[in-house]
């Protein structure tokens, strides 16, 4: 089934194919975005058990909304908009837990626990590159949530400022400002590694 599909089919085309009953199109679409979306969620959600749950909810929403899907924007923007909304719901429902996590993170040693990307890290075997990776993740984690989200949407979703603004529901200037601040702070944090 996938053989009949051109390898460079756009996300929108794959989604329309899936809408018309091509289950293989969804497989291709899912393979394209599963890692980036999962990482986008993992960088913002600090509870490991919730990451997979939110990730699954996002794709279930995509499946359920497939019959009504129409190409009004890029599929990637739509996908990360759903993820953003899910995360917002999660943040609102777990405000106290998130606050406590922030307090813990501000403590000292618990930071690495809260950052999913660092869970596979082995501090004793870190090389220079590993130390640089840990530093950027630490700096990313230190960003305010809106700025971090803007930066992750830019990097994991490959979005432009306009798409970030659309996905997060803010103005173009606000999105650009968030991204500018995020990059400035990251650069400041990583000065020693450059």
């Amino acid at each position, binding site marked *: 089934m996938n053989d009949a599909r051109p390898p460079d089919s756009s996300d929108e085309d794959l989604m329309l194919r899936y809408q018309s009953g091509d289950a293989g199109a969804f*497989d291709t679409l899912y393979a394209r975005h599963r890692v980036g979306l999962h990482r986008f969620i993992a960088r913002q959600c600090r509870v490991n058990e919730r990451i997979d749950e939110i990730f699954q909810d996002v794709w*279930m929403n995509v499946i359920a909304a497939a019959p009504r899907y129409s190409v009004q924007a890029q599929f990637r923007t739509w996908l990360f908009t759903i993820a953003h909304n899910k995360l917002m719901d999660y943040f609102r429902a777990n405000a106290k837990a998130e606050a406590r996590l922030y307090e813990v993170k501000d403590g000292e040693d618990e930071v690495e626990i809260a950052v999913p990307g660092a869970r596979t*890290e082995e501090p004793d075997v870190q090389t220079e590159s590993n130390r640089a*990776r*840990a530093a950027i993740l630490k700096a*990313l984690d230190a960003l305010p949530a809106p700025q971090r989200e803007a930066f992750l949407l830019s990097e994991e979703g490959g979005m432009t400022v306009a798409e970030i603004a659309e996905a997060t529901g803010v103005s173009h200037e606000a999105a650009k400002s968030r991204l500018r601040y995020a990059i400035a702070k990251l650069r400041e944090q*990583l000065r020693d590694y450059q």
Partner: protein
Amino acid sequence: MSAPQTPDDTFERDRAAMSAAYANAREPYAGPPPAMDDAIRAAARRAVGAGPRPAGKPWFLRWSKPLSVAAVVMLTASVIFVAIEEDSSLKMNVAQRPMESRIAQEPQDKRADLAPPPASPAPAAAPAAIEPQVRSFVQDPPRATKKDAAAARENAVAAPPLMVAEQKQSAPVPPPEVRIEPARERAAAADARLANTSPAAAPVYAPPAPAAPPAPAIVAAAPVAPAVPVKEQVVAAASSPRAEAELKLGAAAKGKLESVEVTGTRVDAARAPESGFADKAAAAPVQRAPSSALAPAPAAVLKKSVEASPAEYHARLREHARQQRWKEFDVALTEFTRKWPQAELPADLAQLKREREKARSETGK
């Protein structure tokens, strides 16, 4: 010398640098667990395998086509049913109205029938004997105009069985050697034949059954071999109630009977010689008239054979009253009264007659 950097240039440069740093910082990310991948893919396949889900169409939109088809079918069936009903009633009216118009023109018809017709272009080869009317109708198509044919078709709807038998005998037959006598002579001849029991002297048209009396109106002038079709006609006619009426008419003409009642068809024998209407209607298949009397269109013969009886007039009057057609009611009542002056109306029709007279008098005032 390099151009001074704008804030946007700085932003784009820093963004590229941080993007590269973040890309280097990405560890080989496993992503979601394989079990979740399978679950999500299975859910996607289930959603597709369930078929296209209804796009939120309300029930009346989904049922609009079947309901439309059902409505069209019901409407068509109703229209066809009503059309069939109206067609049957229309046929009844068509069969009745010409009769009414004929009744209204009855005096003229009587005069026309009794008056000697203009010289008809009888074929020179025709025998001197008189041809039967039915045969004349069959063998002389140029005389039957379109109007007559239409009238014949209309009258065929209400034609008595005897007339159908006549029409079935439409094969051309050689002119029979028969002679038609006037009514009184026919009656005398019938009596003579009844008195004569000798088979040798029996008429050519003797009925096959001994119980049935022979047809009195036809007298064989000579042994006629080729007159078999005519004989069959007469035999068929003799076995019918109208043939009996013919016989009784002959007797009535001789014995001065005033009226004869035969199976619901009353024939006023006293008026028969003058009008020739009911007489001809009853004796149409067997009556013989002079060839000069055959000049009128054969449709007239058919018209006279469907004359209404008092019972039919009663039914017609009731139908007019039921349908509130008071003008037709009055006309039919007048004709009935004129036709049968001594007949009594049933109670309901008498009541309607009084009401109509009262209404007419009030309208006249």
